[in-house]
C-alpha cells in the first residue's frame, strides 16, 4: 500500500449521512477478481443516469471536483456491506482521505488497510467543511491534524500502529507473520 504523510487538496462534499457501501460501489460490480478499476463505478447510481450519462448536478461530476483527493461525507460513512471494494473504488477514483464525524467500523478498517485515511473530526469542523465545499485542506498523518484554510487545526484520532503503517506504507500482514511463534504457542495450548 502507498505511504501517506501529508495530503493537501480541495474537498468534495457529500453531506448525506449514512452513505452505505452499496452506494459507494454497487454489488453488480463486485464480480471482478482484481482490486483495480473500481473507480469508474464509484457511486455509479448517483453519478450516472439509467443510460449511463453523467448527472451534471452530482458533486463528483462537477468540474471543480476534478483532482480533489479529499471526500467530506455526512456522518456514518461506509455503513452496510463489508466490501473492501468501497475503499478500492474511492482510491482508484483519486481520493486519499475521507472526512466525517462517524465511520462505520468495517469501512474504517478497510480504509486503513489500503492507505485511505479516515479523518474523524468534531461537529464544528465538519459543519465548516460541509458549508465550504472545495476548501483547500491539509491533512497531516504524523500529527493527526487537519488544517482548514481559515487556520483552524482539528485533531483526528489515529492509534500508533495505524499511523506507523500509513506513514511507512506497510500492510499489517508482515507484523502478523512476525507473531508466528506466539500463534504456534497458542495453537499448542488450545489443541
Amino acid at each position, binding site marked *: 500500500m502507498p505511504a501517506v504523510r501529508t495530503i493537501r487538496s480541495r474537498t468534495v462534499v457529500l453531506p448525506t449521512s449514512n452513505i452505505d457501501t452499496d452506494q459507494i460501489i454497487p454489488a453488480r460490480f463486485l464480480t471482478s477478481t482484481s482490486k483495480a478499476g473500481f473507480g469508474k463505478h464509484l457511486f455509479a447510481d448517483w453519478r450516472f443516469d439509467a443510460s449511463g450519462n453523467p448527472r451534471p448536478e452530482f458533486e463528483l461530476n462537477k468540474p471543480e471536483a476534478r483532482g480533489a483527493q479529499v471526500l467530506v461525507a455526512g456522518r456514518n460513512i461506509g455503513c452496510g456491506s463489508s466490501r473492501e471494494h468501497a475503499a478500492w473504488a474511492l482510491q482508484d477514483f483519486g481520493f486519499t482521505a475521507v472526512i466525517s464525524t462517524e465511520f462505520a467500523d*468495517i469501512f474504517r478498517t478497510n480504509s486503513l488497510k489500503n492507505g485511505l485515511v479516515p479523518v474523524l473530526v468534531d461537529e464544528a469542523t465538519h459543519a465548516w467543511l460541509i458549508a465550504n465545499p472545495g476548501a483547500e485542506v491539509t491533512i497531516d498523518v504524523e500529527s493527526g491534524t487537519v488544517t482548514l484554510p481559515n487556520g483552524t487545526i482539528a485533531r483526528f484520532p489515529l492509534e500508533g500502529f495505524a499511523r506507523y503503517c500509513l506513514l511507512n506504507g506497510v500492510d499489517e500482514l508482515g507484523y*502478523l507473520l512476525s507473531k508466528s511463534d506466539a*500463534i504456534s504457542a497458542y495453537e499448542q495450548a488450545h489443541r
Partner: protein
Amino acid sequence: MFEKVWDDHVVVPETADTPAVLFIDLHLTHEVTTPQAYTELRNRGLRLRRPDLTLATMDHSTPTRTEQVFGGVPIAIDSAAKQVKQLEANAHEFGVELFNLQDSRRGIVHIIGPELGLTQPNKTIVCGDSHTSTHGAFGALAFGIGTTEVGHVLATQCLLQRRPKTFAINVTNSLPAGVTAKDLILAIIGKIGVSGGTGYVLEYRGPAIEALSMDERMTICNMSIEAGARAGMIAPDATTFAYLEKTPRAPKGDAWAAAVERWKKLPTEAGARFDRSIDIDAAALVPMVTYGTHPGMVAPITGSVPAEGDAVFQKALAYMGLAAGQIISEVPVQNVFVGSCTNGRLSDLRNAARVLRGHKLAAGVKMLVVPGSQNVKRAAEAEGLDRVFLDAGAEWRESGCSMCLGMNGDLVPSGHYSISTSNRNFEGRQGVGARTLLASPETAAASAIRGRVTDPREFS
C-alpha cells in the same frame, strides 16, 4: 460473555499502540471477497496456515435457476462465472474444503455454518461478509471483515483487533402472537439507529430472547450490523445445545458432553456491567416494515410513514416514492422476496407458507422464494412447502443470496416496490431504482396475497 470469548482467543494482548492479535477458530469464505486475498498470498509466496479451519462456499453471485445450477446451462453473467471458477481454482491450489455449485451441502455462508454445526459457542468466527454477525446467535464472537483481513486470516489464522465495547439489549416480556424475531430486530434498529451499535458488540438478553428458537436468534444477530455493531451475541442455553447436537460436525460422544460443560460457563453473570444498555418491551411490539432507504427507517405496519424529517428523510421518501404521513398498509407491492441469510431458513419458509397456503399472488405480483441452502431446500420440499409457493404462483429456486443484493441477476425492476425478508433497503440494493421494504416472511407472504403491505395477523 463477550469478554470470556475475547480473552480466550488473545494470542498477543493489545497495548496503547498495537491492537491485540486474536486467534480465529473458523474462517468462512465465498467467491466475492476472496479472490484478491488469494492473489496477495500468491504474490507473497504464502500458504494457508490452517486450511482445516477454513471452509469455502459459493453464494453471492451464483445463479438460482435450476438449469444454470444443475442443467449445464452456463451462468448468465460471464464475470460471475469467472469468479466461481476462480474460487474453485483457489480452493484447489490452497487446499480449502469447497462446496461447489452442485454440492448438496452448498448454501449461503451464514446458513451452512450453523447447519453443519461448525458454528459453536465460544468460537471466534469471521468471513468477508458483514452478516457474519449471524453466528453470534450461538454465543460465538462472529464478525465481518474486508478482503485484506481475509488474507490475514488465510495466512496467519489471526486478526489484529481492538477490543470493542459491550452493549446490552434487554428484551423484556414476550413477543405477542403474530410478531416475529424480524419485527423485533427491526424495532431495535429503529430505536438505536443505524450507527447506534458502532464500536460495540451487542448482547441480546432477557426473557423474550431466551424464548426464541435458534433460527429466530440468527435473524436477530444477523441484523446487528444494520445497527452498525461489530457483532451480536446471545448466550448459549438448552435451545442452542439441542440444535447443535443434531448437526454433523458438532463434537460427538464424550467430546460433546465436555463441550456442553464448557459452554454452560459462557453466559454473562448476573450483575455484569455493560458499557451501554437499553430495554425493549417485546409485549408492546407489532409487525414492522421499513419505509426508507436504511433499516433504521422503520414503522409499525399498523402505522404511517413519519409526518416529518430531515433532509436524509426527504431524500429517502423521494427515492421510495412515498409521502410523509402515508399509511404503511396502503403502500403497493409488485415484488416479493423470501430468502437471504436473515430469513432463508426452514422455519422462515414454513412461516411464509403457512400464510400463503390456499391463496394466490395478487394480480401483478411476482414472488421469488429462495431457500438459504440446498439442505433447507430439500427439507422444505420434503414438507411440501415448494408446492404451496408454486401453487400460489411464486417461483421456487436453488439456494443463494439472490435478490437480497441482486449480484447474480435476480433483480427487482426500477420503481417497483419489493417487500423483502432480507436485511438492507439501501437505494439500488435489489436493483437500480428498486424500492425495498424490509419485513418478516409472514408479512411478505400476506402482502403477496393482497398486493399491498399487509399485516399478516389478518391471516391468522
